[in-house]
Every structure is written in C-alpha cells, then in structure tokens.
C-alpha cells in the first residue's frame, strides 16, 4: 500500500503509530512505544531526480544514504551536511527527520540548510508538497525546514529535495597529539582563518583536523602555522564521531557556542570546532552547568523516558510547538512522545 494511503487508514481508525526507516536512531528522543504499529518507509525508495548541473537531488524517504552518496560521488558531488549513515543502514527520510549533521557542519551547514523541499504526509494522510526543487524559494512558510529535525512528529516525510555540493578534489586529515584545552584553542584559531577546513575534533588525546578543497589549497593549508609538520591520519575519526559510536554508554551531547568553556575538561569528545561535545557520564546532568546552548541525553539502549532527552522549551515556544503539532497532525497520531512527552 502506498505510504499516504497507509497513514490515511490509520487516521480513519485514529490509531497512533511510529515511523521507521532504517531503524538506526532509536537512541535519539524518547523511546517509541513498542505496542504501537509501525509505518515503514523502507520500500518507499528511489532517486526521483538528480541534476548535477543544478546541484539538486530529490529522492524518496526510504532511499539509503549509501546509495545517495554513491550516485553523487559518481558525478563528483556530495551531501554538504555529511549525515551519519550508521553502518550503511540509515535512510534519507531518517536523516532529515532527525536533522543530524556530520563533522563538516560548522563550515558547510546543517541538514536544514540543504533542504529545499519536502513531500510530507500529514497526520490525516494527505500528501502535500512544500518548498521546491530550486535553490531560492520564499513562497509560503518554510515547512520543509520546520519538519527537518522534528523527529517525525509533524508527519511522514515521503520525499526530500536537497541542494548538493561539488565534492572537494582533495581531502587530508591531520592528527596533532595534545590535550583538550590546547586543542580547543587551536580549533578556534583555525576556524577564524581563511583555510579550507572541514573538520576539527578532539578525541583520544589528539586534535584531528580535516582539510578539503583543491589540491593546491589543501597543500598550502598544510604548511599553515600549527598544522605544519602535523602527521597525516590514515584512519580518520570523522565517521565515528558523527555516528555516535560512543554509544553503548549513556551520552550527553552538548551543543554550545564554539568558544564556550563549559565542561571542557570533562568531555570525552569535542567536535565541530568546539560547538558539539560528548560526555559519557550517565549520572551527571550537565544542563545546570550550561550558560548557553543546550544538552541532549542519548541513551543506548533507550530506557525509561526520564528526564526528557531534549532540553526544555520556554513556555512561549512550547505553546507554539503544541499548536503546530495540532495543525499538522490534529489527531496526534504520528510518533507520539518521540520528541517530547505530550507532543
């Protein structure tokens, strides 16, 4: 049965349900209720349009990221936000619904920055189209970006149009053994320079820096100040950090301004040039120690929903959030409670 018809049938029965793609992101948000039916997007797959000269790709939600990456690579292009593919099982729909972005994010942009349009099945089972397959479009409210990162609570993403980017000619990862404080200082310094940086992370007692660009630009950057003489890393860590492979443990993800001193000494991983940090300490709630930014609890395996995995919203924002949920999913059937309890 086609996806919209399936959702419409559930709507007629007022039957709440969960959406599942590759099933790789159960660690994010509140656990899905095991007693509710699942709507799977995995058979709803395939690339609908790809125009390398237009930098635009449109694919169905169930299309695997691996497949998309292959098709793009054949044309010398890539997804700018480097979504984690979780051992090749992740789908495009899941990547957009979760809004996760990889190591390149601070310099290239997040998932939401590359979303140009979506086909969305609302909670009533209606297929609607928002945005489009052009780079610039300000007609109507930006629903495509609103559903990005909404964890499926505003409807089933059926297809997505994305802006894609030319892949760099050359990519080099460097490794500089150092402590967290020094790594943090170097990350901030590098980010403020006109060099082709595409990753800066501290993990395992070393600062890892990735350079991407033309051959000449990457070579020139390698001789730059603190990078001069740095060792080339054969097994770079970029995939592991964005795949949350510290999982197996309960993790806190901190999203902070890059220069923030918050929990610098306690974090296991400092990624995104300082802006994303991971802390593997289940008993420690870092929220009260953040002056700026927010913390997300990542549980593996998903446990009881307490506390809320995502930081609390202000009353004004919560009110708007509740109303938006009502507008998109009046019977409140889609992914109940996954993002927040009561949503």
């Amino acid at each position: 049965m086609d996806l919209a018809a399936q959702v419409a049938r559930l709507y007629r029965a007022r039957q709440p349900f969960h959406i599942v793609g590759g099933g790789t992101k159960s660690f994010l948000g509140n656990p899905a209720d095991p007693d509710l039916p699942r709507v799977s997007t995995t058979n709803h797959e395939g690339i609908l349009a790809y125009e390398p000269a237009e930098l635009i790709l449109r694919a169905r939600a169930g299309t695997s990221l691996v497949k998309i990456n292959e098709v793009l690579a054949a044309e010398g292009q890539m997804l700018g936000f480097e979504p984690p593919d979780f051992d090749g099982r992740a789908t495009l729909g899941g990547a957009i619904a979760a809004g996760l972005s990889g190591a390149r994010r601070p310099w290239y942009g997040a998932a939401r920055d590359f979303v140009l349009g979506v086909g969305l099945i609302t909670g009533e089972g209606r297929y609607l189209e928002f945005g489009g397959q052009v780079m610039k479009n300000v007609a109507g409210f930006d629903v495509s970006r609103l559903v990005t990162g909404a964890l499926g609570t505003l409807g089933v993403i059926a297809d997505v149009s994305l802006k894609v980017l030319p892949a760099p000619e050359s990519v080099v990862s460097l490794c500089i053994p150092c402590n967290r404080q020094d790594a943090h200082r170097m990350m901030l310094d590098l980010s403020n320079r006109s060099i082709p940086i595409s990753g800066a992370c501290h993990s395992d007692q070393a600062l890892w820096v990735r350079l991407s660009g033309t051959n000449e630009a990457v070579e020139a950057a390698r001789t730059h100040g603190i990078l001069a003489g740095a060792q080339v890393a054969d097994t770079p860590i970029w995939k592991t950090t964005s795949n949350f492979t510290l999982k197996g443990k309960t993790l806190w993800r901190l999203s902070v301004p890059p220069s923030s001193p918050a929990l610098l000494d306690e974090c296991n991983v400092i990624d995104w040039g300082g802006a994303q940090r991971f802390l593997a300490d289940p008993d420690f709630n870092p929220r009260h120690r953040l002056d700026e930014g927010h913390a997300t609890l990542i549980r593996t395996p998903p446990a009881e929903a307490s506390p809320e995995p995502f930081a609390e919203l202000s009353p004004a924002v919560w009110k708007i959030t509740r109303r938006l949920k009502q507008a998109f999913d009046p019977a409140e059937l889609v992914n109940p409670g996954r993002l927040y309890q009561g949503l």
Partner: protein
Amino acid sequence: MLTFLRSAIILEIVYSGLMQSRQPFLADFLDKLVNVCGDHVIGDPARLAVYESDGLTAKRVLPGVVVLPDTIAEVQAVIRLCYEYNVPLVARGAGTGLSGGATPHSEGVLLGLAKFNRIIGVDPINRTARVEPGVTNLAISEAVRELGLYYAPDPSSQIACTIGGNVAENSGGVHCLKYGLTVHNVRKLKVISPEGEIYEVGSDALDSPGYDLLSVMHGSEGLLGIVTEVTVNLLPKPENVCVVMAGFDSVAGAGDAVGAVIEGGILPAGLEMMDKPAICAAEAFVSAGYPLDVEALLLCELDGTATEVSTQLSRLREIFSNYGARDVEVAFDEAARARLWQGRKAAFPAVGRIAPDYYCMDGTIPRRELASVLTQITRLSQYYALGVANVFHAGDGNLHPLILYDANRSGELERAEAFGAAILELCIEKGGTITGEHGVGIEKIDQMCVQFTEEELKLFHGVKASFDEKGILNPGKAIPTLHRCAEFGAMHVHRGEDKFPHLDRF
C-alpha cells in the same frame, strides 16, 4: 501634569488626522496608544503619506496610524494594545521590500522599527554579531570589517534595507549560491509574540532543541512575530577574490556555460547573467566596460585562498572558452572588480533611465529551463507590447525580468501586471517558484493560489494561527485565503506539468 497635557495635544492631532480619514479607531485604543508612545504616534495625513507604500510603489494605502517607538517596552506595549483591540499590525523596516510586505493596513497600526539601529555586540571568536532589527545590512559588514569578518547576504538594497526586513523576507543577494540566504546566516532571533510575550528562537550554539522555529520565522513576512534582536553569523573575509566577465553570442550559450561551471566542480561566490537590453542599459548608465555586441554577459566571482582562486580561475577560463565566450576580462584588484560589478548592481536604476517605469519580477526556475523561459518571455513581451530587460542570478536560477512601462499611459500598468503574472505562472509551469527572494507580500498573493493546493494553503494558515491566533500580524499578506483563491479563479498547477492553456495563445 505636563505629560498629560502633551498627551492630550498629541491625541488631538492624531484624532484630527484620523477624523479626516476613514474608519476611526476606537477612542479607547488611541488614548492608550498615545499614553504609551506619546509623540511617537503619527496621525496627521500629510505625515502618514510618507508610509503609504514600501518598494512596491504601485500599491499605496494610507496607514491608519503610524507608531515609531524607540524602546522594546514601547514595542511590546503597542503589540499588546493591538492584540487587546484586534487592530491589524504591520511591521516596517526601511520600506525597501519589493512585494508589498510592508504595505500599510488602512485600519491598522504601521510599526516602524528603523530607530532600533544599534549593533549590540560582536563576538569575534564565535563570529557572531547581535544587532537590533533596524540596523542596515551593510552596516553589519562595515562594523566588523576591522576584524577581517563580514556578513554574507547582500541584497542589492543593502545600503538601506534593515536586517529585520531581511529576516522577514529571507533576503538573498548575488552571493547566495555559495553563502546562502538570510536563513543560512542567522543563528538566533528575539521575537515578540502577538500577545506581547518575548521569546527566543535558535541559540548561540549551532542548533537548538525542538522544532526549527528559526527557519519558519525567516521569510514569514511579518505574519508570525515581531523580531526585536538578530544574532547573525559572520564569515572570515576570503584571502583572495576575482571577478571574471565573459560575453556570449546567445543566452542559451551563456546558460550552458553556467551549467558547465557548476558541473565542473566550481562553486562560484557569485554568478550573474544579463541579457542584451540589460547590458545596454547598464553600460549607458555606468560605463562598466561591458561589450555591447553580445547577447548575454556573465559575471563570475571566485573567492578563497590565493591558490584556490588561481586554480579555479584557470578552469573557469577553459570552460568559458569551450562555450565560445568572448571579451573575457579578469579583475583582481578592488577597483576593477567594483567596476565590473557596478553595471550589474546598477541594472535596476539603469533600466529606470530607459523607461518611465519598470516592474521587477522575481521567479526562480530550474536553470536548464533558462533558454526556453527567456524565449517565452520574449514572446510575452511582444504580446503585451511592453519591453523587458532580464537580469538573472544564474547560479541559482533566480530570474529578475524588468518589465518596462509608462504608468501615465492608460492601461500600461495593468498590462505590465498581467505580463508579470504570466511570467510567474510560467515559472511554476517549469517547476520553479513565484518568488526566489522578494517575497509574496500582496504582489504575488494570487499566484500563491496557482503554486499551492487548497490543502497546502490550509496548512500555511495552520502555521500562521500557531504563532498568531487572532491573525493581527500583517493580515492579508503572503498567504491568500481560500476565498480569495476561489475569487481569483486560479487552479493549482502541479509543478512541472505543462497545462497552461492560456499561454498557448502566443
């Protein structure tokens, strides 16, 4: 006592103005408004006339009353009053918008925010600036120039337009292909709800929990909230910049060259095209050194490290020569680059010199449709007997046909509007959109009925009501009522499907 007297005098002025005008406000509402804002309230018709239109000058409406507050508390109080009395509220920055987003409401308050022009703080390490909504776009880059930073989006009105207006319209500019629109360059907003409550969307970090309300606020055309503070991202200035100009014997040839550049792995900072009428008008106006015997001109800006720019430049030259480019000129130093850009940046006023009036359109199309769309525009131009000059953000498919007309000749304005509407519908038919960066406002509200289905429009109304339950913010703009669409008689056209019977006449 003095304050009371002053309020009374102002109130009388406001009243006497409003008495001469239409629909008087509830006396109670005005009393309270003047109590809160004193002489920041304008009711005198002569002074109200200053605000009767934004950049869409073809639509003029005398506002009910204008308020120009200078504190956030005052703004909050005005919003609360409007909420309490159900008075429509239209926010306005510099009034440079081209789609009528700030066209006043005859029975409403026009809230001018231009006095909020302070840069609150700059954080060079995290590369952000916190600014008030009335700060002009260019003022941000100027304020951080010494730090080697700049704010990327650069709409052509950047010398005058305000950042608050940029957020409301999700403004672009010539550098969006590489650096994105306003939504890609803003980290956080402080917003006042219609109920008068202040809240934040986005954060100082790179993301925030919950729904992406930051994105929805961008391009919402003042329908969802009043922005009182904007935290923008700043970028390090590129080490090296060069501009390449190339002439082509056909628009299609230039279009193919653009495709080849992007397919060749080059992402230029800017990639602009002009057709012959636009080239001639610009050259006559500013003497940029453009060749006059070509059918299309490309301007391509490359930026990055010195090595990156030089590698990309040699590739670009090769691609351009493969596609038959001539009169190629490369400019590195700032003065020479500025000269090449000047013609493009002055294209609108330049066209203004060759016709008494012009009407600027803003459709976006998939770039592969360029040649076919321009051919159709030429045919439409013959049909409506009005000239047209085309400037084009070629890299991202955003087309700005400038329709030439003379408002003093009877029927020409109406013909220009019909011509414009036909172009927009053509854009939808080709799989594009009715507005790339200027917004819907009141100008393109009827074409919204063509671009979206009834159900899609209903959901937009649902989004609007989620932020503004009473519907007091900028009513009648951006999203048409279903009733209006029924009256307009437009049928939704599914993207990409050719079914425009009335276009077959050409």
